[in-house]
């Protein structure tokens, strides 16, 4: 564990060292400022309340889109994995949505629903639902037929079966969908904000792009990466460890 932490720290330090070398080589703060030169504007943005406000706006959108995409994708994937007939009907739709570029869905949602919060969250959700559904469908198909038979022999109610038999078998697939989901969703949220919202990290990055302020673009990007790393280390990884406790006993 200590070795892993040490490697992570050295790796992060190596990243900053590379950044400093590149900044020294370009020698143009407008193209690539040195890491140290970002501390002052970062502090000012933080104390003014601008940075926390825009981070919170983006985080709220990520949470909404994540919850909706996971819920819808899990139900859809589970139903498709259970019934070949339903899968035959819905699979072409799934393939269409999987191959539809994120940008197209975002633009269409804004055009059809309007430049509002509902359209923003719907666009992100629709982008992620197919990936979750595919993973959960494969997990549903991979369940043990003997354990399924066991549940039937002992007349388990559908709810008990879902909670005690199905969801534990799907846990690795749910974890994979959640982790890849968080990573993809926040990136799409930034595009959605860039195209049609008046707040959030994506909006701020767009603003500083127009001002050609690379430093502020980096401050907002790294701030949100830090938030997402906290979510990864503080929520997702502990939950994943809890679900596979029995594997490492």
């Amino acid at each position, binding site marked *: 564990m200590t070795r892993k932490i040490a490697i992570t720290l050295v790796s992060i330090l190596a990243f900053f060292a590379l950044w400093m070398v590149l900044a020294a080589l370009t020698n143009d703060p407008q193209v690539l400022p040195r890491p140290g030169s970002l501390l002052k504007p970062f502090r000012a943005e933080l104390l003014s309340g601008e940075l926390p406000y825009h981070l919170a706006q983006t985080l709220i959108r990520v949470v909404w889109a994540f919850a909706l995409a996971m819920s819808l994708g899990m139900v859809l994937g589970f139903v498709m994995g259970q019934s070949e007939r339903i899968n035959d009907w819905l699979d072409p739709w799934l393939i269409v949505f999987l191959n539809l570029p994120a940008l197209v869905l975002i633009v269409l949602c804004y055009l059809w629903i309007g430049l509002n919060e509902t359209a923003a969250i719907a666009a992100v959700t629709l982008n992620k639902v197919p990936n979750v559904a595919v993973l959960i469908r494969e997990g549903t198909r991979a369940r043990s037929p003997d354990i399924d038979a*066991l549940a039937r022999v002992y007349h388990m109610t559908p709810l008990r079966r879902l909670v005690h038999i199905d969801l*534990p078998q799907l846990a690795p697939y749910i974890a994979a969908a959640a982790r890849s989901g968080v990573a993809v969703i926040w990136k799409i949220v930034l595009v959605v904000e860039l195209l049609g919202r008046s707040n959030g990290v994506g909006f701020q990055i767009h603003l500083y792009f127009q001002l050609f302020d690379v430093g502020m673009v980096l401050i907002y990007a790294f701030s949100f990466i830090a938030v997402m790393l906290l979510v990864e280390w503080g929520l997702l990884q502990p939950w994943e460890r809890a679900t596979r406790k029995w*594997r490492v006993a």
Partner: protein
Amino acid sequence: MIAVDGLSKSFGDLDVLQNISLSFGKGETVAIIGKSGVGKSTLARIIAGVDKSYQGRVSAPDRIGYVFQEPTLLPWRRVLANLTLFHPDLPDDTAREMLARVDLDNKASQWPRQLSLGQQRRLALARAFMGDPELLLLDEPYTSLDSETHEDMLALTETLIDQVRPAVLIVTHNTLEATRLAQRTYELRGSPATLQTVPA
């Protein structure tokens, strides 16, 4: 009373079982022997109500205990929960008592993967006998065991059958297991398989 009358089963174009008739009651142990793949497990699954696509009539009680070829435990639940989860109406003490009867009372809080194969099979047996089943289905329950553990398992099964007195159907390819546990033995033979009495 367990009654199977004129049962036939196909998987697509492949006829597996043909016109199987069989009946037995509480306190009786019946063995079905036959080569691997002949349809023994399919017959057990139909009687258990797991497979419902067949022709003919099958009548079996609701309270069934089933021991699969593999222990088929829930690896994500601890040993005690592997019993209580399938018998939510019974108190935990009944499950602990059952664990004691199969000599696993000191393993209640362990994970199934921490048990040996023999212990896992004993746990599967405990799950099947818990709640006093009216019908017990044993589908090749002793495969992959060393001779000593195999003998222990057979003795344990005999003891539990004597105590609970359910109707028992054991499916096996081992003639010695069949003659030791069962009063009547049948053989599934042919393709599609038919049921034939094996003389005592």
